[in-house]
């Protein structure tokens, strides 16, 4: 009766990253990682976020004491630049396909839907002929596998300094494996867009030759939708009453 020998449990975010990785691997995407303490160049400047942009305000971003020029990354988008710059340096030109899941930070009070520490999954596809239509197709595949249902993907206009056009992505799930709470409803899943030419240039790519898209939905939100988790604070609670359900 040694219950000790039973299996432990994987954190739902780890599970989700594991599954996302498998789905994207089939489409040729490589998983990349990067530092959480990031330079302002990668986190803001290279992404076309001007020096005076409100996103850079102290009330949104964690700056480091006595370490000017560094922030706790506010998104995984800096990994776009890191990856592309690295490839160009190595002389490897597009096509590129990567996903970059990981922890991000924003300086805000926590409640049921907000956390100072959260997870994002960045995705990027760059080539000579990568279009916004491919983004729809990619999302459709990703979501239908993650949520085990049929999915419709819809775009709405939005704005990010590092994409043009910028969009907000919604999805609608149907099928018997989809929970009733989600079935048939339009659900907001995150931002995306065609990579701004300046961002490609900042990475050393010729924006006349190459184009592509990037996306960055929140993983916490996807996990919450997938499993019906009602409080984002559970993710960092360390509470096995939560973890052991996965």
């Amino acid at each position: 009766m040694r219950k000790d020998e039973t299996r432990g449990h994987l954190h739902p975010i780890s599970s989700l990253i594991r599954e996302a990785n498998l789905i994207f691997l089939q489409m040729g995407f490589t998983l990349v990682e990067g530092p959480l303490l990031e330079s302002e160049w990668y986190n803001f400047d290279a992404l076309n976020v001007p020096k005076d942009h409100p996103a850079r305000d102290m009330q949104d971003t964690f700056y480091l004491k006595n370490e000017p020029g560094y922030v706790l990354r506010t998104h995984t988008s800096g990994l776009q630049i890191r990856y592309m710059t690295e490839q160009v340096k190595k002389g490897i030109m597009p096509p590129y396909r990567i996903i970059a899941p990981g922890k991000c930070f924003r300086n805000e009070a926590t409640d049921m839907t907000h956390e100072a520490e959260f997870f994002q999954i960045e995705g990027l596809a760059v080539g000579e002929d990568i279009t916004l239509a491919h983004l729809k197709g990619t999302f459709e595949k990703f979501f239908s596998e993650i949520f085990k249902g049929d999915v419709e993907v819809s775009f709405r206009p939005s704005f990010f300094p590092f994409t043009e056009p910028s969009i907000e992505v919604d999805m609608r799930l149907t099928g018997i494996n989809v929970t009733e709470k989600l079935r048939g409803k339009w659900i907001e899943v995150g931002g995306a867009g065609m990579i701004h030419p300046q961002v490609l240039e900042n990475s050393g790519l010729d924006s006349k030759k190459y184009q592509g898209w990037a996306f960055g939905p929140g993983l916490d939100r996807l996990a919450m939708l997938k499993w019906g988790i009602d409080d984002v604070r559970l993710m960092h609670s360390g509470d096995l009453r939560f973890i052991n359900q996965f």
Partner: protein
Amino acid sequence: MKISREWVQEFLNHPLPNAEKISNALTFHAFEVENIEKKGKDDILDVKVTPNRGHDCLSHRGIAKELSAILKIPMKNDPLRVSASLEPKTDLVSIKVEESNLCSRYIACYVQGVKVGPSPEWLSKRLLSIGQKSINNIVDAANFVMFDIGQPLHAFDADKLVAHKGKYNILVRRAHEREKMLTLDNKEYILTNSTMVIADGNNDTPLGIAGIKGGSYARVDSATTNLILEAATFNGPSLRRTAQALKLQSDASKRFEQVLSPELAVYAMQAFITLVKEIAGGQVVGFSDTYPTPQEKKEIIVSVNQVNAVLGTKLRDSEIIDTFECLDLPFREEDGLFTVSVPFERLDLSIPEDLIEEVARIIGYDKIPTVELPLFSKKPEINENFQKTESLRNDLVSKGYSEVYTSVFRNKGEREVLNKIGGDKPFLRDNLALGLKEALEKNIHNKDLLGVEKIKLFEIGTIWSRDNETIHIGTIREGEEIRETSLEEARVDVERENLPLFKTLHYQPFSRYPAITRDIALFVPRDASPDEIEKVIREHAGKLLVRLRLFDKFKKGDKISYAFRLVFLSQERTLTDEEVNTAMQKISSKLTENKGFEIR
């Protein structure tokens, strides 16, 4: 921004559809609508204008223009396409701007003989509909024009300024260090020289904080008869820093922060004057304009092929033409190339991709097909780090460890973040051990509820030393030392088979109340089945029993002893000992009804 449907209607030739349809049109083609509020016959939409359109869409005119393009309703009038003039000029008011990079344009208009009083009903009603108080006809006219076309304006009582040989002088300068300023709402601000002020150039008295708030000194009141009206363009980023430092945000500052075209000031001044004359009378003496570096005219070239190559569409010339016409973007076409002359207020348009976005959103993103990515021509690279963490996860999970993520913020560490909201735990962790220890303690009293003998946890996460960021892996197990090592040094024992991806379909919120644990042990005849006993226990324990497990068994003579652990828990309240005791008694008496059953 709050937008009144009736106000928008004033700009359009045909009736708008209902508020819900307007909201959908904006959401799918321009901006998210956060809320719709019914106000009498009107509807007030809270439109979340994106930062790239703060130049032109923080106004009813801007939203009308969008709706005109989306819903194909022609504009009846466009106040930014009328001919506006700053004639006649006057030398009775001169302007001196000390740093033109902080104020790219300043227009003043000298008006004599106005009658200050309450606003006409239509005006106060318009302002009220979007939550603005009516103050007097002059102030209301300035506010109306701002919400109408997006340019903040200001009016000074000319007679409160010093006239030097009958001439006024407006000075736009940096504030003096520690200069005091009493604003219109009678609050005193102490300024620094990063703040721009409008001052009376003849005696240096500050009249207002540029673009943010007017001063009390030259305020317009019921005795005012002569006005100096201001339509100016202030530097957005500088003004934003000032507004933040002073903790003073206004509807004016919000607009300047988004950067406005200096061309807009002329149209706003024109609208201001027209309205003032209509509702307060008076005569325009003349204008004065300081505009050293006029805004450059922009042209963008885009081709149909380019549009289709980015969007993955098969649009034709006619659809592009249609979009540009709807959006009132003047263009000429030559061999499939469109050269668009960007209207002055559309500061967001500067590269071909900006125009491609205009086409995409106006035709609608639903017109973009869904296409699978072509096969990738290269082999995806293997991320060794990730592979290793996945193997470690598999290994630990198979050994009974559960994975936690604990916060990176601690009370101690070698590096510290600035300005953390709440101020609590500003340090970045330099180990995983402390967080794991806390997590262990948190879970220990839930062991029975969780049905585990020992709590075993692990975390794979980032830690920071003075000059390094490393990924660590830590494991903790009740009664044993914590183990923590860097991922680099961690050894992967055996590559175990991959875990099945997900066991769980849905998460069940757990009870936040404490559980109560009880054991029951009994001797039973050798042929009695423990499954049967479990069944009896379950049947009689009631709904509050959440976990039941056999934890001990031994033989003694012709009998066998079974010990069970029961965990009771309510989703709604803290259980009492009494109710659990009652349940236990019920179970005991039911079990002892069986021949040869004996509670130990």
